């Protein structure tokens, strides 16, 4: 499946990339792995050491919050990674 994944501007600037890139994958997890194959620096910023999405990072699939990284994606779907509104205490 070909999926468009969009990342926050701060992360795009970090890896000198466009915010949206197209990757292949059959699940949200595979889409993220596709993103990390292109920009391996991003893994540590999206996922924690256990492979879980960081507490203050939000992940949406077709504008709905991702419940499980194993949920399936279809051709033309979108995955949006956002800096959560939480986490900005300082």
């Amino acid at each position: 499946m070909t999926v468009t994944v969009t990342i926050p501007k701060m992360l795009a600037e970090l890896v000198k990339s466009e915010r949206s890139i197209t990757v292949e994958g059959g699940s949200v997890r595979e889409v993220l792995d596709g993103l990390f194959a292109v920009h391996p620096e991003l893994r540590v910023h999206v996922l924690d050491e256990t492979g879980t999405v960081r507490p203050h990072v939000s992940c949406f699939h077709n504008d709905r919050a991702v419940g499980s990284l194993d949920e399936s994606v279809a051709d033309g779907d979108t995955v949006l990674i956002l800096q959560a509104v939480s986490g900005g205490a300082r």
Partner: protein
Amino acid sequence: MTSIGIGTLKGAWFARNDGSGWELDGPHLKGWQIGTFAKAPGGDHLLTTSSSWYGAAVHRSPDMGEWTQVVDGPSYGENGDRKLEAIWTIHRSGDSLFAGVAEAGLFRSDDDATTWHPVESFNEHETRPGWEPGFGGLAAHRILQDPQNLERMWVGVSAVGVFYSDDGGESWKLRNEGVHRPGPGNEEYPGIGYCIHCIVADPADADTIWRQDHTGVYRTTDGAQTWHRIENGLPAGFGFPIVRDAASGALFVIPLESDQYRLPVDGKFRVYRSTDGGDSWHESGTGMPDVPTYTGVLRDAMDTDGDGGVFFGTTGGDVWATQDGGDHWEKLPGMFPRINTVKVIEE
């Protein structure tokens, strides 16, 4: 040319002075919390980042212009529940680098900062189950080494204490005798519970180390086997940084009123200097604010250039400098976010 790195809660700036005044360059890594600056054995500049949202990382640049993240930076990996929160310090040891991190641990790179590996002898120290964080987190934030014998290292961890190795980091012993502990301590691991804020050594005599601790200012002359208070002339023992000017041997601290208030005593924000190895302290120089100034300086936010230059940044976002060993202080142009780190940069 004097160059300093200013690492803040929201990015890095570089201030340069070729003798005609200070010029600012930045922000770099805009929005990222900057942990520290360092230099790789191959000559690249390094800086570390963390974030309230994202992970902690090392970045490198050949020219302090374009920064590239190190992909295989320090990481605790998937097996375990430790999280890498921030990289507090990077210390060069010959052709290797050591990184001190939070959650407290050491990592080592032997390939010019390209890959990093945990120092298991330290990270799995027998007292590890008892390690507790201070207010700033559980962090290995200071690494010293004997320039004449690289096997000898000292590492400061808050709020655990100073560790010492005489075998290149193969084994570690706690070295905090004589230091007052801020709490009752740990019954199971009685050697820990010390809240070291900063240490600095005399490179010509590595056994002499000065310590700004949570509970006061101390000195050892026997490689940290025993510590003794040296607070004669200080308005308060609490503070965070302590640095030493190699040219004059002068020491500098910035006292704050107790761990409860953490403010300059009566709003009098001053740098205190000792020119006798810590036996006595005196308010240094001229140029500091003569109006009430309630700010502070964090442990990594003060550095020296070895030639009379002392530089520090405040939690209020000001950067201060002296070029004459503390006789005269000037405030640099600009106001920044909360300043975590100030380092002299070798360009």
